[in-house]
């Protein structure tokens, strides 16, 4: 069981990483784009704008009050 949890944890850390809100925004943006296309709008601009905004907000949130950490070992990218 410990190995299964560790393996799941590895994939979560690898794919989702430090900020889970990015994953949520991506899912919402993809679903909304799909709905817009189904409704007849060629909403090619929606995904780039949503993703750009998600990245910007995530970086700005990380900036709030976090001093640079010392060099340390990290297993994730």
């Amino acid at each position: 069981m410990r190995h299964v949890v560790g393996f799941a944890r590895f994939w979560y850390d690898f794919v989702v990483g430090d900020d889970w809100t990015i994953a949520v925004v991506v899912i919402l943006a993809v679903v909304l784009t799909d709905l817009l296309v189904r409704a007849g709008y060629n909403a090619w601009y929606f995904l780039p704008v949503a993703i750009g905004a998600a990245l910007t907000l995530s970086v700005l949130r990380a900036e709030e009050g976090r001093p640079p950490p010392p060099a340390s070992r990290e297993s994730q990218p």
Partner: protein
Amino acid sequence: MSDNGSVRSLLLFAAAFLASSVEMVEALTIVLAVGVTRGWRSVLIGVAAATVALAAVIAVAGPALGHLPIDALRLGIGGLLLVFGLQWLRKAILRAGGLKALHDEQAIFTTELTQARDAPTIEKAGVDWYSFTVAFKGVFLEGLEVAFIVVTIGSSQHNVPLAALGAVSALIVVGIAGFKVHAPLSRVPENTMKFAVGVMLTSFGIFWCGEGAGVAWPGADLALLPLLAAMLGLSLGLVAHLGRRVPHAVGSA
């Protein structure tokens, strides 16, 4: 192959090559530290076992994904790639902007070296299990990350062989470099590579998710280029912003 297809293929190869190089440099650091300290036999057995396990994972996952409809694949895998690419890019931006420590292969090598020296020797069937386990785990986990990248970006474009070629090229280049210097590749500009890969994976992810949702991109495949330019511009802008606010900023991607 059309110009559009060539651009896409070139970017696919570059993304697979760069991303795989970064992961392989990390695996090489672990393997070198244990091999130098405790001998190479058990380490090489661990590397071989991990390679076989990885080949089995790819042999199962690759063809299975190839049977899915392309639009569903692009939507699902593109979304996964987008989440992964974004968090990779975010981390590279924070590192370049001085908000996160840079990945230090030399420090990791020193830590691994110390741990390998201090660990007790337990031999079973002529294999030092510490060396085997550390080498297997390092190569398997970093290799899984490479496999994820190759299978996702390759299958989204129905061209896993080209992505695999990028990964194999990276293996050869990193392997030769590691063999020559016999030390961790600490001078590899790892964050710059991660930054570039993050921009590529995010742009690919946006493009494929859009295609999977049925979007008609202006300029078809060539839309990838302005997408790349926009993501690169935004990312560099964020690094510059952090550089102004954080006194310890590294200053470059």
